[in-house]
C-alpha cells in the first residue's frame, strides 16, 4: 500500500436522508430530542422544519474516510463544528454531499483529511477533519 500524499482526493459520496433515518438514529443513539422527528415541535422552536441530528451528519460525513481507508479503526481522531442544520422535509428529505482531501501528512505517516459536507451547495460542517493511520498499519 502506498503512503498518503498531500492533495490526495477522498472519493466524494452522496448520502440521502429522510425522516425514517432520523427516527432510526434517535433510537440507536438515544437522542430523542423532538426537533429531530416532530415537525410541530421543530417549528414551535423557530426551526424551518425537522433537522437531522448533528451527530447523524457527523457519522455520515466520515463514511467517505472509512470507505476510502478500508479499516474504520484507522480513524484515530475525528472532529467537526456544526454550522448549519440539515433540514429534512417530509417526504422528500435531503442529500448530504461529502468529499475529502489529504491536507497534511505527518512525520509518522498519518494523514489529516479535511472533509467538506454540503446540502444544496451550503456547507453544513466546518473544520471537519479526520486523522487517519498510515495504510498497512496494525489493526490493533
Amino acid at each position: 500500500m502506498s503512503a498518503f500524499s498531500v492533495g490526495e482526493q477522498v472519493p466524494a459520496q452522496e448520502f440521502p436522508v429522510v425522516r425514517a433515518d432520523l427516527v432510526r438514529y434517535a433510537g440507536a443513539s438515544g437522542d430523542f430530542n423532538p426537533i429531530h422527528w416532530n415537525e410541530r415541535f421543530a417549528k414551535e422552536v423557530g426551526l424551518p422544519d425537522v433537522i437531522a441530528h448533528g451527530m447523524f451528519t457527523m457519522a455520515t460525513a466520515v463514511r467517505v474516510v472509512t470507505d476510502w481507508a478500508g479499516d474504520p479503526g484507522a480513524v484515530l481522531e475525528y472532529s467537526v463544528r456544526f454550522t448549519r442544520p440539515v433540514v429534512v422535509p417530509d417526504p422528500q428529505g435531503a442529500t448530504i454531499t461529502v468529499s475529502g482531501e489529504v491536507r497534511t501528512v505527518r512525520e509518522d505517516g498519518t494523514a489529516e483529511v479535511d472533509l467538506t459536507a454540503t446540502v444544496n451547495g451550503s456547507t453544513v460542517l466546518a473544520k471537519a477533519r479526520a486523522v487517519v493511520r498510515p495504510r498497512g498499519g496494525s489493526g490493533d
Partner: protein
Amino acid sequence: MPVDQSFRGRSYPPTRPYEVGREKIREFADAINDPNPVYRDRAAAQALGYADVIAPPTFAIVLTLPAGGQVIHDPEFGLDYSRVVHGEQRFVHHRPIVAGDLLQVVVTVEDIRVAAGNELITNRADLMTVAGEQVCTAYSVIVGRGTAS
C-alpha cells in the same frame, strides 16, 4: 442566567459500566446507513486484526451523550437546557471500541467561555475499560444561546 463558573475543572463520578454489545454496534451501523462488514461480521473484523466487531468512529456518543447530561441537567450548574445546541464534537480514539468492551465514562467540565452573549461549555468525556485502559476521549462543545447574561 449564566452557568456557575466554579464548575470549570469539575469531574463527575464514573458512569456505571456499559457493555458494548455486538448487536448494538450493528443497530448503530444500520442507523447511520453504513453497510461496512467490520461492524457486523466477526470474521471481517478479525481479518483486520481485531478481536471482534468494532464500532463506528462516532459510536462513543451512545455513552457520552447521557454522561454529558450529568453536567447539562445538573441544577447546580444552572444551564437553561431549552437554549442548548451542540456546537462542536471531537473524538480521539486510543483504540477502536470493540464488542465486549466494558466501559465507564468520566465527564469533566474542561472549559467555560463566553462569546457574543453565548456560553460555550467544553465537556471532556474519558471512556475507559473497567480495568482502567483508556479507549476514547470525546470533547463536546455545548452552546447556551444567549445564556451569558
